[in-house]
């Protein structure tokens, strides 16, 4: 029997993906273009038996998530770029206390108040940790509404498995556009966490903390974080290769930009041009292994809705073996199919 599909926006798919993953705590603060998430959670969490709070600020929202995660919940907050900047304090504490949490950033133009147009200019912030200290987040970038649903579900499992914050990094187009989505069934039970705060009945007290004052203690602790990062870097690489065999130019893109790039690839291929696409899904860990082509003549063309951020990671991965070109627009501009095709033709 064919499974039923629902027509929902990317923001709604993220919210439903969270609920179906057993998310039982959400806190957020309104900001465009992700307001459908807080509205959806407000409406549906009550039905699903979870808690949804409209917090007084982004700071309060992320710290409520910290508390709920410390108490063993599957918890999430969402925002858009300026709001994510405010959350960075809390994200650093969540990473430092080894708490699982899911943070959604539906990016808009910046810096400052910027605009409400789609953007990918928070790549550096997302993939470098974003707040103070030596830590990373797992960062996943969906390119369709279906994938927004699926990756949000996955992010709760990864957060719990590795006790690390996971970020869903989308943009205003992905958040707002509607597509048919096949939903999976809601998980029945969320994992029990022996380290969580629940009252110390029958055990020694649990302490959730990120403060290590004794000499050498923080360095020792940070080594355990780095070890975790290494394991994640081995296990959680995600990318998709499209039409790469025999390609002379490989486009590199993620999220909405990868959708547009894919259309360009289809058109170029139909005209006999040897072009492929590396679509990155995990932005951290960065899929370095996607760039190990033996063909020294292959050119990479990184396309971003930014002035050039991910292209730095592509250059690090390529390590001088191949040329790496860049096409990007900033401040809410979106590189068009035509712009991509013209750029590729110059490279071929």
């Amino acid at each position, binding site marked *: 029997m064919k499974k039923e599909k629902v027509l929902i926006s990317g923001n709604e798919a993220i919210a439903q993906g969270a609920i179906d993953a057993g998310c039982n705590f959400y806190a957020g603060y309104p900001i465009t273009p992700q307001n459908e998430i807080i509205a959806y959670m407000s409406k549906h969490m009550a039905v699903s038996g979870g808690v949804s709070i409209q917090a007084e600020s982004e700071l*309060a929202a992320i*710290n409520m998530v910290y508390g709920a995660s410390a108490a063993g919940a599957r918890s999430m907050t969402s925002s858009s770029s300026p709001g994510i900047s405010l959350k960075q304090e809390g994200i650093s504490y969540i990473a430092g*206390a080894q708490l699982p949490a899911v943070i959604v950033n539906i990016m808009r133009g910046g810096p400052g108040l910027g605009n409400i147009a789609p953007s990918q200019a928070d790549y550096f912030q997302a993939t470098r940790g974003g707040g103070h200290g030596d830590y990373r987040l797992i960062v996943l970038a969906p390119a369709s509404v279906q994938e927004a649903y699926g990756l949000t579900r996955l992010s709760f499992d990864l957060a719990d498995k590795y006790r690390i914050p996971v970020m869903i990094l989308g943009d205003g187009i992905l958040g707002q556009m509607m597509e048919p989505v096949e939903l999976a069934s809601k998980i029945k039970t969320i994992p029990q966490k022996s380290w969580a705060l629940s009252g110390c009945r029958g055990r020694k007290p649990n302490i959730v903390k990120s403060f290590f004052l004794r000499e050498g203690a923080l360095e020792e602790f940070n080594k355990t974080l780095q070890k975790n990062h290494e394991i994640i870097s081995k296990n959680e690489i995600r990318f998709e290769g499209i039409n790469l065999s025999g390609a002379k130019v490989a486009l590199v893109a993620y999220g909405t930009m990868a959708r547009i790039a894919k259309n360009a690839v289809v058109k170029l291929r139909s005209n006999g041009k040897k072009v492929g696409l590396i679509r990155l899904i995990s932005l951290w860990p960065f899929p370095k292994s996607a760039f190990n082509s033996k063909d020294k003549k292959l050119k990479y063309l990184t396309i971003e809705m930014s002035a050039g951020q991910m292209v730095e990671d592509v250059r690090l991965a390529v390590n001088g073996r191949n040329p790496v070109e860049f096409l990007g627009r900033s401040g809410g501009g979106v590189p068009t199919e035509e712009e991509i095709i013209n750029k590729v033709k110059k490279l071929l």
Partner: protein
Amino acid sequence: MAKLFTRTESLYDLPTHYCPGCGHGIAHRLIAEVVDELDIREKTIGIAPVGCAVVDYDYWNFDCSEAAHGRALAVATGIKRVRPDNIVFTYQGDGDLAAIGTNETIHAANRGENLSVVFINNAVYGMTGGQMAPTTLLGQKTSTSIEGRKKEKHGFPLKISEMLALLPGVCYIERVSFYSPAEVLKAKRAIKLAFENQINNLGFSLVEILSPCPTYWGLNPKEALDWIRDIMQKEFPLGRIK
């Protein structure tokens, strides 16, 4: 033979890291005694502040979490909403609760979160070396008000408890003091009531304690207690505010 007193189970038997004459040790003990007397140790979750008392969980024998400076009541909200059957309290200083965390404080109170707050007002930032706090008195010298706090330059001591008392979500607010053993006993009764209110689902309760910081008041421990009684209590009068 009847036992009149035993070791407080909620308090570990440890030497203190606090300065001589500091009020934190007293406050830690009072909370531990209240938790024992209410028989809630196994369901209590404490939120530590940022400041001198950041490691209060080293003294308490129950579950605890740290919170970022000022965010204790947001963290407590997250915990309590997920675990409404646990008893959740925050322990916060004046800078934490009434400066960097004013927003979280007001909104948790206004939502009527069913939480208990122990608010240590010692009119100074202790851990960072004695800077001016929101509750520093006019004329009081600190490292950032070296000629004494001036209203023209620094504004007035913030009476956050009186402000919070205006909010309908707030159930109970009382200001107490550590200047004498009799006042310490009153403080314990107030803390106990704040916890009982939570057990009875009555909403947001806060106990403000005027607590000595001899080190950054430049006084010896006895003088610090006298200063609370003679000077500080004039600005921050004791008693039930709501």
